[in-house]
């Protein structure tokens, strides 16, 4: 073929000139893109041309229509069409650009799909956030609603337990008491969780004895494990420091939740609590905590959902991690800039672990300072040379026992104990106390209400009587409200002996 022949063939394939009269009848046709014959009306080639009538009538300059998709007898072509005014009517120039536009289509396809995809993801996330917000609000309201009936249940249980009971009844009461305690713990976890979720929970790092904490955990969980026929082991790397600075209470909460979970879901074998040493950098130590069990393990598909709140709602069988514990662990660790890791083999067991960076004091003598401080507080108070009379008001027998023990051990207090808010006022009027230590959620009359009334008393010694509240509902808002009622200090449960004594002594001093 000659170049001219090539050219002719190419043009025939890709270009078509159609001459029309003013009514749209074909006068001449040079190509085959549009199937049309001399004498036919152009609208027979494709309905597209039916709608071009207005274009034709108003045409005074060439007009172009780009990227026109036409279905032609089963063929899909994409053409550019130009209409020129001509002597006898119009000249149509049809240019087949199918392959050119097909490439462009692929680019547009990708772009549009990803834009839509992204948009839908954003919407989805917004929806999830809204649900999460609703959930937290719900949890907060719900746990508040739950508080009162639980308190009555505990009060009634206590009253019952003080009445004459036969052995069977005593067992039942014991079971009831345990259920109550369990509920109360769950309520606390729930509140902690919603506090984390709504950003109300702040870490409070303190210097504390990590070894001692591990020993306490070891004793507690060895007992629990043994009673279930399991072994328990604590192992701690030799370089794990004794004194560290971290939020002691929250670390304790994380570890107890992991250990509770391990004991609960292991039927035979062993629970191990291990503290490893990762590295030390200046005054920071990175530690590796892990809790290993020989339970039934968590299937791959569930590994993420075990950390979700209320994952049990969607799972019919009882699985490890159902409940709030693991969600709380995850939330607390996130606050601590750490992350919970889970390795698990179905049938073999699970390892929950996390790395935690804690501060260690570098100056020598810090420990002496610490102990001297504590000593000096205690000394100052004993120097005064007398014991303090303290009224202790608490309806939960367990808490009462703990408080009683903590205070008696110091040898510095005479203690009167009440468990009912209604008796407090009378007692305060009749006795010259140095301090009141009072639970806030008391049966009959609440601690903060009592405080308000006491502060109104017309006796001089009473209006300045230090009152310390104890509460399990440790929202910042609550604490403020309680202090506003006239309490000198509020201690959130659970608390440590040191915290309790420090608060008591600082109130007594001032």
């Amino acid at each position, binding site marked *: 073929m000659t170049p001219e022949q090539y050219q002719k063939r190419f043009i025939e394939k890709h270009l078509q000139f159609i001459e029309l009269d003013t009514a749209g009848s074909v006068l001449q046709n040079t190509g085959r893109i549009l199937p049309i014959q001399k004498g036919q009306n152009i609208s027979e080639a*494709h*309905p*597209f041309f*039916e*709608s*071009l*009538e*207005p*274009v034709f009538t*108003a045409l005074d300059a060439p*007009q*172009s*229509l*780009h*990227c*026109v*998709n*036409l*279905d032609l007898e089963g063929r899909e072509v*994409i053409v550019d069409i130009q209409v020129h005014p001509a002597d006898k009517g119009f000249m149509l120039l049809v240019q087949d650009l199918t392959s050119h*536009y097909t490439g*462009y*289509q692929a680019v*547009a*396809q990708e772009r*549009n*799909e990803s*834009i*839509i995809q992204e*948009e*839908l993801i954003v*919407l989805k996330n917004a929806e999830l956030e809204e649900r999460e917000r609703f959930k937290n609000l719900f949890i907060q309201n719900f746990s508040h609603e739950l508080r009162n009936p639980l308190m009555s249940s505990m009060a009634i249980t206590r009253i019952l337990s003080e009445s004459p009971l036969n052995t069977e009844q005593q067992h039942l009461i014991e079971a009831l008491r345990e259920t109550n305690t369990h509920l109360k713990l769950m309520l606390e976890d729930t509140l902690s969780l919603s506090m984390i979720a709504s950003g109300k929970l702040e870490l409070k790092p303190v210097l504390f004895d990590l070894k001692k904490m591990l020993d306490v955990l070891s004793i507690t969980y060895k007992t629990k494990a043994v009673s279930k026929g399991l072994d328990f082991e604590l192992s701690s790397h030799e370089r794990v420091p004794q004194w560290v600075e971290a939020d002691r209470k929250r670390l304790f909460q994380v570890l107890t939740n992991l250990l509770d979970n391990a004991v609960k879901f292991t039927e035979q074998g062993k629970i191990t609590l291990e503290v490893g040493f990762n590295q030390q950098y200046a005054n920071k130590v990175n530690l590796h905590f892990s809790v290993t069990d020989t339970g039934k393990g968590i299937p791959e598909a569930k590994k993420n959902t075990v950390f979700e709140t209320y994952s049990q709602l969607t799972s019919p069988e009882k699985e490890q991690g159902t409940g709030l514990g693991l969600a709380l662990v995850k939330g607390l660790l996130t606050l601590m800039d750490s992350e919970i890791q889970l390795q698990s083999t179905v049938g073999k067991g699970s390892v929950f672990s996390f790395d935690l960076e804690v501060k260690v004091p570098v100056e020598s003598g810090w420990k002496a300072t610490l102990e001297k401080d504590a000593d000096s507080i205690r000394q100052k108070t004993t120097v005064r040379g007398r014991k303090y009379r303290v009224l202790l008001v608490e309806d939960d027998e367990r808490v009462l026992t703990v408080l009683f023990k903590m205070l008696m051990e110091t040898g510095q207090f005479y203690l009167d104990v009440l468990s009912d808010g209604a008796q407090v006022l009378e007692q305060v009027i009749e006795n010259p106390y140095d301090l009141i230590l009072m639970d806030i959620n008391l049966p009959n009359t609440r601690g903060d209400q009592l405080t308000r009334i006491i502060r109104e008393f017309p006796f001089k010694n009473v209006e300045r009587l230090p009152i310390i509240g104890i509460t399990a509902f440790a929202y910042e808002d609550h604490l403020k409200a309680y202090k506003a009622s006239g309490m000198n200090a509020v201690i959130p449960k659970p608390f440590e002996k040191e915290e309790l004594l420090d608060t008591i002594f600082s109130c007594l001093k001032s």
Partner: protein
Amino acid sequence: MQKSKKVVILGHFGVGKTSLIRRFVSNQFSDQYKVTIGVHISKKVVDLSDEDSVSLILWDLEGTDRLEQIREAYLLGTHGVIFVFDINRPSTFQNLKRDLETVKSKVQDRPTVVIGNKKDLVPEEEISSLLEEHDIPYDYLTSAKTGETVEEAFLHLASILHHDS
């Protein structure tokens, strides 16, 4: 005599313009998304009564979120407009009133039918509160997927155009 009316379908990409036409013209639907480029022309003859019919030439335009960019040539000789948004994607209707103004100015106030599509994806009770909240002036809520209200919307425009001339 059968009259031909040019109808352009406008709206953001992915709202279901192509699918609505496909449902109306050949009563088919596909879940596959094939992006339209340029313009795709199809035709449907609509019988309005025993002796009256109108031939709709449907111009399925490449979707865009910037109506100003539409090639003027595509709009020449437009008789009517169908404007489509996707009930699921607020970005396709949050500027609806302004979009409709733009369209109006480009097509010299030709009759316009506004369609909220993909109603099958949103629960009925949510739709009305959603659209009220955004104060959306729609004429029809459709689903190209189930075919719901698709024909009504097109026929409505067809009869307006028929009486128009």
